């Protein structure tokens, strides 16, 4: 197919200029309740509740019970394309995201975004999608079977599920360099973006008997590099599935993050990692910290020490704390931005904001954690856990403290603790509601979302790198999108304006 999706000639694959850091987050939500307490059934109900709400147009009076921003959402939920891929519920949303059942969890995979703040807004939109699905599903379920969703990463009993980040990386960058650059980052960034956890749930971390850990996920990691995501989880995942032109792109699939309730934490998590990848592409390994000798032991040890005083031995013999590693990494990013402007990651204002926030959170957790309790999830959670424990003189493993931990991530508005601890917001409800319905303009997600929104009945399937049309006569027509940077509003908005039917659009693309 011709038109805006041609893979253009690679512009200097050896160029030192970093490629645009297209990025996104996929989150598996914890789920409880549902008929028969079966998580797969409950997850399917959640996905279908969101999708069929719009398809059927029934129960419009339900809108009266919801805030206006959600009414806009309901009014426009007409656009869903099925993805014929698995037996389980699986949809593409009008904002370009994927909403589906993954194993025994409902999962929202955000659309590809052009900057960390944009990806943060679409992550928040995912939360809003899940909240709306939860409300719609429970509107028709027996209250005894009500479904509850949690944006967290473990059940406290040794079972973990993921919040994965994806970053577009230049294929020519050596993978061993990615490992050297990012292992120190992935083991240490938890001190500012960890979501916090009461207690421990794996044998090795339980042996340390921590009252509180700064990360949900850290104790589940067992390897430095590997392909697995569920067993022997690696700090660096080697899955090589670019969802695009494999000659030019790598999609770095990051499985070691916590799902954040704080929008600031999400933004800094994405921003710091994107800046470091861009710095690596631009300047190589210059300035990056040396590797700790035992990264797996280090990531677990850092997690179990909220005082942040733990140090680990590095390959050059020095002992460094997680804070020391983050400090050095921040300077790598700062030098990269000074030298290049950081345009691969975001515009100048946003890059400046991300660097400043990264710095503030870092200094805050060292100097006075309470100053960042409005942005760092583990600090916000620890504040209420410690406060509650002291108020009632509870044992560190009291069920009420575990309940506070769980309810921090609760998506029910009347139960959510994250909604009550005073987290600073980056986006208001209107901006988030818009991101539930409108795709980001600067990636191929724009084309996918617009197709789903405008021609839901003519789309046979869609995935990350193509949209398949069924316009009635003849074979299905696939529109390939191998380049995440094409299919944008600036390249295709005029096509949607000029062509009101799928047939016309395809003709325009083919011509």
């Amino acid at each position, binding site marked *: 197919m011709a038109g805006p999706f041609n893979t253009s000639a690679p512009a200097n694959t050896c160029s030192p200029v970093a490629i645009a850091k297209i990025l996104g987050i996929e989150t*598996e939500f914890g789920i409880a309740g549902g008929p028969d307490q079966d998580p797969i059934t409950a997850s399917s109900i959640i996905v279908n509740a969101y999708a069929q709400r719009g398809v059927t147009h029934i129960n419009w009076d339900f809108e009266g019970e919801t805030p206006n921003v959600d009414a806009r959402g309901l009014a426009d939920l007409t656009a869903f394309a099925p993805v014929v891929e698995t037996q389980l519920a699986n949809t593409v949303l009008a904002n370009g995201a994927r909403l589906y059942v993954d194993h025994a969890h409902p999962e929202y995979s955000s659309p590809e975004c052009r900057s960390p703040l944009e990806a943060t807004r679409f992550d928040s939109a995912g939360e809003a999608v899940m909240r709306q699905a939860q409300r719609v599903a429970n509107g028709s379920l027996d209250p005894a079977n009500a479904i509850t969703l949690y944006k967290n990463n473990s059940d406290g009993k040794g079972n973990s599920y*993921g919040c994965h980040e994806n970053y577009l990386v230049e294929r020519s960058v050596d993978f061993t360099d990615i490992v050297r650059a990012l292992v120190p980052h992935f083991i240490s960034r938890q001190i500012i973006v960890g979501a916090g956890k009461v207690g421990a749930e794996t044998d090795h971390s339980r042996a340390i008997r921590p009252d509180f850990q700064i990360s949900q996920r850290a104790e589940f990691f067992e390897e430095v590099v590997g392909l697995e995501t569920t067993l022997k989880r690696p700090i660096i995942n080697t899955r090589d599935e670019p969802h695009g032109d494999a000659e030019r792109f790598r999609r770095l699939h990051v499985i070691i993050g916590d799902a954040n309730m704080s929008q600031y934490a999400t933004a800094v998590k994405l921003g710091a990692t994107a800046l470091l990848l861009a710095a690596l592409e631009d300047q190589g390994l210059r300035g990056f910290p040396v590797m700790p000798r035992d990264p797996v032991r280090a990531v677990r040890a850092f997690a179990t020490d909220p005082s942040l005083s733990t140090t680990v031995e590095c390959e050059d013999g020095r002992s460094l704390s997680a804070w020391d590693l983050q400090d050095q990494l921040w300077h790598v990013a700062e030098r990269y931005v000074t030298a290049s402007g950081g345009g691969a990651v975001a515009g100048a204002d946003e890059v400046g904001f991300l660097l400043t926030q990264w710095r503030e959170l870092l200094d805050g957790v060292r100097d006075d954690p309470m100053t960042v309790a409005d942005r760092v999830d583990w600090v916000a959670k620890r504040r209420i856990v410690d406060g509650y424990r002291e108020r009632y003189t509870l044992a560190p493993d009291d069920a009420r403290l575990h309940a506070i931990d769980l309810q921090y991530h609760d998506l029910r508005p009347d139960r959510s603790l994250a909604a009550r601890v005073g987290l600073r917001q980056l986006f208001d409800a209107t901006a988030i509601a818009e991101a539930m319905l409108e795709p980001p303009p600067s990636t191929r997600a724009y084309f996918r979302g617009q197709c789903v929104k405008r021609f839901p009945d003519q789309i046979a399937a869609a995935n990350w790198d193509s949209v398949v049309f069924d316009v009635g006569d003849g074979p299905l027509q696939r529109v390939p999108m191998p380049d995440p940077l094409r299919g944008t509003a600036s390249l295709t908005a005029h096509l949607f304006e000029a062509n009101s039917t799928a047939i016309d659009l395809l003709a325009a693309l083919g011509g």
Partner: protein
Amino acid sequence: MSEQERIQKQRVSRPTESVADVSVDTTKGEQLKADLDDLLDEIDEVLEENAEEFVRNYVQKGGE
């Protein structure tokens, strides 16, 4: 470096911090404590009544 040592080091490296900052910090500290008390009251209202059962029943299958 222990937490204690680190705090001392910071104090040494920032000799110019004024007394005024300290008083602001005290006020802020009291404000934070008052805020926390209110927050804990609110948590008492929304926390699941049977915390033990609530926590015990939350069992997930691993994902990813």
